[in-house]
């Protein structure tokens, strides 16, 4: 199983990868620092799941996800964001994701993602 992590913060990418490796050591993790790089990696690596941030320079998470959804409406994505507004949550839910998590990322989030993925 391959999981693509997309976040412009190095701290966040490392944190997600470290905690996910503890929760789901069998998966392979790849990372991207923005939406454009994430989209390129999605196309070249065909990951099974995406964990992505929303606010990123260049191409943001919503734009990246919309692009991917246009190619593959069944893509399985989870959003990790510091923007905890209800309206943002509703906007993301409309595009269609498995789950939205509020930052900071925690081990509890990682365990929940592992459960979601392996169910």
């Amino acid at each position: 199983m391959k999981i693509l992590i997309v976040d412009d913060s190095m701290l966040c990418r490392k944190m997600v990868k470290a905690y996910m490796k503890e929760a789901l050591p069998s998966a392979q993790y790849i990372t991207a620092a923005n939406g454009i790089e994430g989209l390129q990696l999605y196309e070249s690596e065909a990951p099974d799941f995406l964990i992505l941030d929303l606010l990123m320079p260049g191409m943001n998470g919503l734009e990246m996800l919309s692009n991917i959804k246009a190619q593959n409406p069944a893509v399985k994505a989870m959003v990790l964001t510091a923007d905890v507004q209800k309206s943002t949550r509703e906007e993301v839910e409309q595009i269609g994701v498995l789950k939205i998590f509020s930052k900071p990322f925690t081990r509890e989030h990682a365990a929940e993602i592992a459960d979601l993925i392996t169910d």
Partner: protein
Amino acid sequence: MFTNEQKDALQEYMNIFNGQAASLLSELLNKKIELHITELKLFKIGEKESAQQVDNGFPALFSGNIVSSSISFGDKFSGKAQLIFPVETSKELVRLCLNEESGNEALAHGGLTDTDYDALKEVGNIILNSIIGGFGNLLSMPLQFELPEVNVLTSFNPTAALSNQEDEQFILVFLNTFSVQDTLIEGAIVVVLSINSITMLLNKIDEVLIEIDIEE
């Protein structure tokens, strides 16, 4: 003093605290807030620098008069947090808070009415409490807050925010832009920390970085 990883981590934590502030502000305004990319700048003020040198070396944050809403906090982790906006931007923000059409009357205090002051005090309280409270949560430490103060200044003077009791202090400038409906709001959050406080913050960030120290 800061490594790239420490700066990235500090910026990410500030983004998280800012996101929480935006959510609360969105509830107050009953409007969606569109967050934009932020920028964090760090300045060390040494004991040998004069106030004049510091002020001359500090970038001009905004031109014209600015409104500053500030809260001092302490005690082990102590400093002063300021939210600053150009006066015109602060009036737009007040208009959005009060759900008013643009063009309301400009009165005393650099064009701000008492109602404007009150609204800006509330906005400052929400945003700065999220930032200071975020630091407290990160450090697992309760922080004492003072009441917010709102002032109109002719320009931002960093040395005015410094404490005279400290020889060396750090200034964190978090440039923060967001949109409410079609109105662009440009502001900055300026946090002045003592050498002890910045050391505590960096030690905590290092703990986190060590815990997740893996190759990407």
